[in-house]
C-alpha cells in the first residue's frame, strides 16, 4: 500500500515537471503557425494588388485620371474611357439595393416576429439560403431565357409612360441595367435577410417587453426600437450586399447588354466594370489588357472604399449601443 502511494506521488511530480516542455512548445508553435498563416494572407493580398498595379501601370501613365471621366471605348484606335462602366456598376448596384433592402429587411422582420410558427419560419429561411446557393451562371441563364422575355412588356410599358424621365428613356430591349439590377437584387436579398434576421433575433427580449410595456404597438416597437437597435447589423448586411452586387461578374456579363457607351437610361443596354473585363479579356491585345487591369484596379478601389465606409458606419452605431 505504501509503495503504491509513493509511486503515485512520483507520478504526480513527473506530471508537473513534464507538463512544461511539450505542451508549451506546442502552444508557442501554434502561435507562430497562426501568425505565419495570417501574414501570408496579408502578403498574398498585397502581392496581388501590386501585380495588378504593375500590369496596369502603363495604362495608368498613358490615360491618367481622364480614364475615369472619358466615355469612349475603342480598342481599334486605343481610346479608352471607363465612365459608362463606373456609372453602370454604381447604378445597377444601387437600384438592386433599392429593391433588396426594403424587401430584405421586411422579410427579416417578418421572420423574427411570431407571425407564423417557428418551424415554418425556419423552413422559409432555409429556402432563402438556398437562393444564395444558386450559381450565378445559372441565374444568368434563367435571366436570359425566362426573366427577360417575361419582363419585356413591363419595360415597354415603363418606357411609354415614364419615358420623359431620362432614367426610363431610350428603346427598351430587355438586356439592360434594369434587368441586371433586378436579378442582382434576387442575389443579394438572402445576404440582407439572413444577417438582418440574425441581428434582430439576437436583440434582448427585454427591449421588446420594455417598449410594449410603455404602450407601444407591435409596429412602433419594431420601427422605433428593434430596427434602430439592430441597425449596425442591418447596415453591415447592406454594405456586404452592395460589395457583392458591384463585383458580380457572370450575371452582369450575361444580362447587362454589354454596350460600351454612356446612357443614363436604366432600360438601355449598359455595362459594368466586371462585365467589361469578363467580356473583353479573352481577345484583348497588349494595351487593352493593361487598360483592363486599370479598370480592375478601379473596381477593387471602389469595393475597398465601400468596405471601409461600412466598417466606419458599423463602428459608429455600435458606439451608440
Amino acid at each position, binding site marked *: 500500500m505504501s509503495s503504491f502511494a509513493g509511486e503515485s506521488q512520483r507520478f504526480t511530480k513527473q506530471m508537473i515537471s513534464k507538463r512544461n516542455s511539450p505542451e508549451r512548445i506546442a502552444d508557442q508553435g501554434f502561435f507562430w503557425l497562426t501568425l505565419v498563416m495570417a501574414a501570408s494572407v496579408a502578403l498574398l493580398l498585397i502581392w496581388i494588388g501590386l501585380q495588378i498595379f504593375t500590369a496596369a501601370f502603363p495604362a495608368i501613365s498613358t490615360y491618367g485620371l481622364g480614364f475615369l471621366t472619358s466615355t469612349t471605348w475603342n480598342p481599334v484606335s486605343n481610346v479608352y474611357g471607363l465612365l459608362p462602366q463606373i456609372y453602370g456598376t454604381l447604378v445597377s448596384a444601387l437600384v438592386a439595393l433599392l429593391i433588396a433592402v426594403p424587401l430584405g429587411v421586411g422579410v427579416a422582420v417578418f421572420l423574427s416576429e411570431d407571425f407564423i410558427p417557428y418551424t415554418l419560419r425556419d423552413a422559409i429561411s432555409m429556402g432563402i439560403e438556398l437562393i444564395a446557393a444558386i450559381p450565378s451562371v445559372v441565374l444568368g441563364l434563367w435571366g436570359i431565357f425566362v426573366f427577360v422575355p417575361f419582363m419585356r412588356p413591363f419595360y415597354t410599358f415603363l418606357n411609354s409612360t415614364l419615358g420623359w424621365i431620362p432614367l426610363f428613356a431610350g428603346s427598351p430591349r430587355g438586356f439592360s441595367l434594369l434587368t441586371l439590377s433586378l436579378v442582382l437584387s434576387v442575389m443579394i436579398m438572402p445576404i440582407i435577410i439572413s444577417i438582418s434576421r440574425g441581428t434582430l433575433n439576437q436583440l434582448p427580449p427585454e*427591449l421588446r417587453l420594455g417598449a*410594449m410595456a*410603455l*404602450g*407601444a404597438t407591435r409596429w412602433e416597437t419594431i420601427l422605433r*426600437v428593434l430596427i434602430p437597435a439592430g441597425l449596425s447589423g442591418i447596415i453591415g448586411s447592406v454594405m456586404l450586399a452592395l460589395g457583392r452586387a458591384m463585383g458580380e461578374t457572370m450575371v452582369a456579363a450575361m444580362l447587362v447588354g454589354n454596350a460600351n457607351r454612356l446612357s443614363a437610361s436604366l432600360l438601355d443596354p449598359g455595362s459594368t466594370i466586371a462585365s467589361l473585363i469578363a467580356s473583353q479579356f479573352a481577345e484583348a491585345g497588349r494595351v487593352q489588357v493593361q487598360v483592363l487591369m486599370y479598370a480592375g484596379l478601379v473596381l477593387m478601389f471602389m469595393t475597398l472604399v465601400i468596405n471601409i465606409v461600412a466598417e466606419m458606419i458599423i463602428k459608429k452605431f455600435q458606439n*451608440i449601443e
Partner: protein
Amino acid sequence: MVYDSATAVETDTIIRTENTSIYYGDFKAVSGVNLDIYRNKVTAFIGPSGCGKSTVLRCFNRTNDLIPGCRVEGRVTFHGEDLYSKDIDPVQVRRRIGMVFQKPNPFPKSVYDNIAYGARINRYPGNMDELVERSLRRASLWDDVKDKLQASGLSLSGGQQQRLCIARAIAVEPEVVLMDEPCSALDPISTLKIEELMNDLKQLYTIIIVTHNMQQATRVADYTAFYNAQEAKGGKMGYLVEVLPTDELFNNPKEQSTKDYVTGRFG
C-alpha cells in the same frame, strides 16, 4: 403631504381581481386570486419563488398577452372596467398601467430619447424638454444626468439605468406603476434611492412592487400581499394567502403560513 391610513382614500380601489386564475397552456400557475389594490398606495407582493407573483403582476397590464399560451380566467377590473373584455385594447391598458422590470432595460438610445420614446408614441402634445426634465426629476435622476442627456442610456450605472427605466415609465403619465423586483440587481445605495423614490411617487401614482426583500416591503409598502404555492397536477400552483396592511401582515398575520414565512421559518 401626510397620509392618514384612516382617510377615505384608503377605500378607493383602482385594480380589483375577482377569482382570477392564470394559466400557461394547461398549467394553472395561479389560482383564484381576490385582491384589491388601493389608489395612491404602495402594495408589495411577497412569497416564495415560483408562487406566481410576477404572473399576477403581468396580468394587470396585459404584458402576459406577449407570452404564448398564457390565459386569464375570472375578472380583473381597472376603475371597475374589465381589463380582459373583448373591446379593450391592451396597448391602451399598458399606457395607463406602466411597468418596470427586474433587469434594467433602457433602449440603446440617448437618455433623452429613452424618456421621450413613450411620450412620442402617445403623441404627447406638450413641451418634450420639460417632460424629460420633469420625469427625470421625479425619478431623482436629473442631477446625475442633466449634463449628459445625449449620452447612451446604456452608459449609465445599473442603479441609474433602473431609475431611467422608472423615469421612462412615468413619462407616459400612467396611473399605476408595476415593479417586478426593481432592486434585485442593485447595490444598497441605489436600492435606498429607489425606495425613497417610491414614497414620493405614490402621491402621484399607485405602485405595486414584487420583492423578495421583506425589509424592503416593510419600508415601502402600505399593504403587503403574501402568496404561496401548493402541489398540484403539472407543478406548483400559486395562490394568494392574505393581504393586509404591512404592519399587520408582518406582526400579526391571520394565517400560520404567513407567520412562518415572515419569521423565516419557511423554505
